[in-house]
């Protein structure tokens, strides 16, 4: 097990290197001047792009350029973002807690709801409940996240004045800006508790209602579908029949025997979902006005702010790779038949 984890961790830099190669390769479509802008650390430097072209060999061959760029990155300089007017690393550090908090609050309700729907659908196969769940899921699956978010925004926020947009109520946002609230983690609901300010935490939770509804409706379909089909497989298996023959109550058979085994494929889906949540919540951040990574990187990509794009791609690529590793380890723990050899 340890060797397996170490081997996978050693692969991680290789994957990141490959991702950076792909994106760096795409940058070759741009002219040297445009590329030079991605190296500037400040507004002043951006005025002297010729010097940067010479310094970083941007008019030389691809490998020379890549080597020079890589050296910069290894020294912790991911470049300067035009979008946020500050170094990319600073922006990521500032905005990551916001996105991470959002991702955590989106992940668990979606997972729980998907598992519940999948179980109900499988137990009541081809009955009315199954049909309702399947139609519900396929409608959610067909809705783009931003469309669902806009509908909720118009009806819940616009008409019913519920929940509010942004991360917290305006009054609390002002207090935070004035420094009256100490920042420990950057996650608003957690910081509220650590400061002993329950009103802050409650306000943060209130503002999470619309994002959670949006994402749960849009994303739980996939989990429901996979769980339903894997649970149907398990319900047809011999040991479930044995359990029933022993006279166990139906609920015990369904939950303890069937679902526990059917849930294994869910680990893969859930792991990938968690990794891609950074990306999946981009639109939620944009529409509900959360100052997270998406709200910065999406306009950045539209504006061809390359350092920002490379930074975000490396970050998401990293989280996908780590999530895959965690999924593989969890597999071994949940299902002892899987060996790491």
């Amino acid at each position, binding site marked *: 097990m340890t060797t397996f984890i170490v081997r996978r961790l050693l692969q991680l830099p290789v994957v990141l290197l490959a991702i950076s190669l792909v994106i760096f390769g795409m940058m070759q479509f741009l002219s040297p001047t445009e590329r030079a802008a991605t190296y500037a650390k400040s507004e002043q430097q951006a005025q002297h792009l010729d010097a940067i072209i010479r310094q970083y060999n941007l008019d030389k061959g691809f490998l020379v350029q890549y080597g020079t760029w890589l050296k910069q990155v290894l020294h912790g300089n991911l470049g300067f973002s035009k979008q946020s007017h500050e170094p990319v690393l600073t922006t990521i550090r500032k905005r990551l807690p916001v996105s991470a908090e959002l991702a955590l609050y989106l992940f668990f309700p979606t997972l729980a709801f998907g598992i519940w729907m999948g179980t109900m659908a499988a137990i009541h196969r081809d009955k009315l409940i199954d049909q309702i769940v399947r139609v519900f899921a*396929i409608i959610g699956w067909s809705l783009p996240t931003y469309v669902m978010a806009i509908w909720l925004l118009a009806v819940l926020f616009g008409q019913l004045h519920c929940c509010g947009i942004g991360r917290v109520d305006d009054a609390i946002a002002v207090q935070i800006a004035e420094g009256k609230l100490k920042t420990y983690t950057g996650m608003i609901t957690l910081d509220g508790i650590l400061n002993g300010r329950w009103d802050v935490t409650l306000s943060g939770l209130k503002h999470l209602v619309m994002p959670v509804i949006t994402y749960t409706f849009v994303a739980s379909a996939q989990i429901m579908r996979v769980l339903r089909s894997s649970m149907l497989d398990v319900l047809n298996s011999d040991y479930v029949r044995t359990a029933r023959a022993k006279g166990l109550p139906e609920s015990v058979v369904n939950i303890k025997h069937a679902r526990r085994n059917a849930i294994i494929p869910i680990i893969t889906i859930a792991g990938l979902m968690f990794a891609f949540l950074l990306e999946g919540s981009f639109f939620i951040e944009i529409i509900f006005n959360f100052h997270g990574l998406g709200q910065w990187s999406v306009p950045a990509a539209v504006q061809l702010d390359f350092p920002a794009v490379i930074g975000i791609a490396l970050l998401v690529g990293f989280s996908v790779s780590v999530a895959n590793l965690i999924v593989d380890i969890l597999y071994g723990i949940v299902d002892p038949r899987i060996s790491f050899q």
Partner: protein
Amino acid sequence: MSSADALKPRQERWYQSKRFRRFRRNPLAVVGVVILVFFATMALMAPSLTADRLGRACLRDLGLGRSQARAVLHSPLNAHFWRAMFAPPKSCYSIPRVGYSPRPKPPSKKYPMGIASGGYDIFYGIVWGARTSFYIGVLVVGVVMLIATAVGGAAGLFGGWLDNLLMRLVDVVYSIPSLVLAMVFASIFGRGLTKTMIAIALVAWPIYARMLRGNILQVKAQDYISAAHALGAGNLRLFFKHILPNSIGPMIILASLDIGAIVITASTLAFLGLGADVGYADWGQMISFARSWISNPGGEPLKYWFVWFWPSMAIAMFVLGWNLMGDAVRDALDPRSQ
């Protein structure tokens, strides 16, 4: 009828097959097909449906005057009718503008779905947007399948270092989030529908290629491939006559399930301003017209409901139609889900 004829098994037509029957008897599949037929009719009949509201450039390129457009585009006996239906000039895809007021106008008799900010006729955008959506969905999936056949085919057929190299490339592209990558491609290539479609295709192929390669490896191990090889079939003949037809099935199922997702991605890019040119009939872009009227509409958010309601319903229903049909195709073709 002679006895020999009676003994011969009757040739089964595709509509008599068990698979098609299973598809037809699935109520969700029927709903999906009805939705898609509705959108297809709307897309095909777009010139006739919007004959009395075509833009000036479109009329010019069609060679029609405004007064005759209605009569000509409503009569199937006219050559212009067929030309407008199957090869409309590009300018017809631009939504004609009714004034330039930033304030949306509610539905009226002349403009049944209302007018979006900037004077864009919403009904026109919805009707011609259906054409755009079909175009994007079908063409992107087609291109993706071509790329995947080339990459997955080469990897599966030749194996060895080439296989290794191509599959690692697949791994890398797959681990970059697709939306970010599509955004990067789209912003490098610049604005425009074709460029957006290329960006989406460049992002979507890896999963197809990986799947096709796996199936090719399975098929390659079958005895009939060795038999064909022993009979002297060359590599190309083996691939196109024997291997590909027997391994392409799962990829087609994947494609029918994926068209909806591709339309969503394209509309998302358009919503961000990375899609077609401003004013092009594209549902995602039309929703972005509505953005400023949702969160800050001056106290009456639902007053301008028509600005976001029609395009978002159009996208949702269109994708729903494809998903219902894709699901049913999978259920009908996949022997495990009986």
